[in-house]
């Protein structure tokens, strides 16, 4: 049975909404305000790609470390990671309309800046397209190799260990290509790691929200495992906050024109309230709640925090992509809603199908393991 085909009414509905919202965003939006529409699209693409890659990386981390936490969130992670081919298709509009989005791809109107002229060998449209294709080839290749060998612990580890190194390098390069090159004369060595951690955080939050929701007989997650998931979320929240803060601190303290270009529209205009939102909901509140042992072991609390972190991760993607091209201050376009709803609905449609498939294989393998244990017992 093909997990890609929609089977429930909700999936067909999501598929319809997704196609409608995406065509509205791309057709209507591109004809009216092309750059802003594409910016909304890039932010939505960035967020959902991050969920998929973060899920793949978490799966590989678990293949190396083991532990009950990873067994119970494997179905949602696997389902999200398997959507990478969908995200590879979703990148096409960005590549086709690159000249609208990235100033450096139209050198005629650009290139007065000394440093930017030196960047042209790297920020070259053809090279950019090749790199983006390479990222997806590498990610999907690793996904296929890893999921095929997941049952064999040793081989899965041998694929996962270099896979995590590749994840580190590619998430750095991809985030620089897609997000930082919107402000080409800006650079930050922390950026890639910060984005990679944010992707892991989003993926972990999504999987935890699902794990804390399941209540049926064979899938209910024990409080001890919920506790582990809560601690993992706390760790990702702290890691992301640390990297995001250190990047800001070093830029703030040096206060050099090349380094603060990224922060000027983000912190000196009303976009700063988005920063406060991120500080509150991607750091302070989850941190305070996740300190509590009781909250981490409580299904409802953990799910609430996880859902909040998913929303905050989405806001983080928005923060990374959009404000630099709306320098006037906080401003929303209708495409900002359309694009994430469109990509999100398609992503959800595929994810639910993959989740159903992953759950059934997971349940049957768990049952087989249980029988094995009993027969040896």
């Amino acid at each position, binding site marked *: 049975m093909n997990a890609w085909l929609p089977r429930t009414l909700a999936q067909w509905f999501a598929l319809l909404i997704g196609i409608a919202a995406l065509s509205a965003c791309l057709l209507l939006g591109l004809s009216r305000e092309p750059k802003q529409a594409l910016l909304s699209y890039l932010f939505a693409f960035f967020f959902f790609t991050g969920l998929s890659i973060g899920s793949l990386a978490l799966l590989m981390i678990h293949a190396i470390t083991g532990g009950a936490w990873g067994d119970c969130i494997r179905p949602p992670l696997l389902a999200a990671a398997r959507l990478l081919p969908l995200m590879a298709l979703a990148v096409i509009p960005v590549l086709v309309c690159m000249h609208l989005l990235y100033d450096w791809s139209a050198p005629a109107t650009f290139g007065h800046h000394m440093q930017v002229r030196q960047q042209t060998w790297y920020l070259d449209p053809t090279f950019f397209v090749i790199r983006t294709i390479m990222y997806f080839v590498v990610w999907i290749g690793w996904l296929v190799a890893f999921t095929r060998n997941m049952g064999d612990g040793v081989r899965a580890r041998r694929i996962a260990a270099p896979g995590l190194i590749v994840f580190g390098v590619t998430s750095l390069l991809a985030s620089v290509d897609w997000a930082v090159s919107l402000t080409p004369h800006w650079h930050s060595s922390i950026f890639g790691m910060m984005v990679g951690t944010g992707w892991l955080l989003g993926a972990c939050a999504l999987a935890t929200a699902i794990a804390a929701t399941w209540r049926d007989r064979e899938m209910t997650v024990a409080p*001890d495992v919920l506790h582990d998931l809560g601690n993992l979320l706390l760790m990702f929240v702290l890691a992301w906050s640390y990297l995001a*803060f250190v990047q*800001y*601190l070093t830029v*703030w*303290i040096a*206060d050099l024109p090349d380094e603060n270009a990224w922060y000027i529209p983000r912190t000196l205009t009303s976009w700063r309230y988005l920063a406060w939102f991120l500080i509150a909901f991607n750091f302070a509140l989850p941190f305070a709640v996740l*300190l509590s*042992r009781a909250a981490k072991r409580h299904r409802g609390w953990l799910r609430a925090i996880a859902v909040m972190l998913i929303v905050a991760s989405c806001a983080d993607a928005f923060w990374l992509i959009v404000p630099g091209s709306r320098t006037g201050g906080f401003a929303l376009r209708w495409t900002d809603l359309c694009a994430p709803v469109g990509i999100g609905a398609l992503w959800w449609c595929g994810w639910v199908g993959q989740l159903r498939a992953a759950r059934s294989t997971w349940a049957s393998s768990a049952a087989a393991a249980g029988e094995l244990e009993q027969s040896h017992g």
Partner: protein
Amino acid sequence: MSARVHGLLAEFAEAEHLLAAVRRVREEGYFASCVEAYSPYPVEGLDEALDARHHWVPFWMLLGAIGGGTFTYWLEWYSAVVNYPINVGGRPTFSWPAFIPPAVEMTILWAVLLGVGAVLFGARLPRVHHPLFESHEFERATSDRFFLLVRSDDPRFDPQATQRFLKTLSPLSVVEVAE
């Protein structure tokens, strides 16, 4: 009259046996505050069986964290803004982002200091000698054996009856520990 008894020490080979024994002893009506368990590594569920869920260590650590962080941040503000303001490259005297790392470090330091203090205080340490050290069997508590101690200050404690009861829990040995 024989020497006063500190308690009875039962020795087990497995963590599960210790856990089961603790549960049986508690069911028998011995007070949790008079029953002690010793193991070479943390045994899951043992704290619950001993009613040791609630302790003061997290409270003191939180207090240390909030107190240490707030005081350090205030100290930085006071010294840089009020007491001795200096112009550093035109930056504001209240350089709030730069004040955060030291405050975070002191948050962690004071949480750890008060946490260690609370553990020592709660465990009545430091202490140079303990009646259990007289028992030769007990030396293996830090390597591969699990011990259950019922102290003589429990109202249900009776040297003979308690010893008989502990022997029903199939321990490797039950020994009397002198005061």
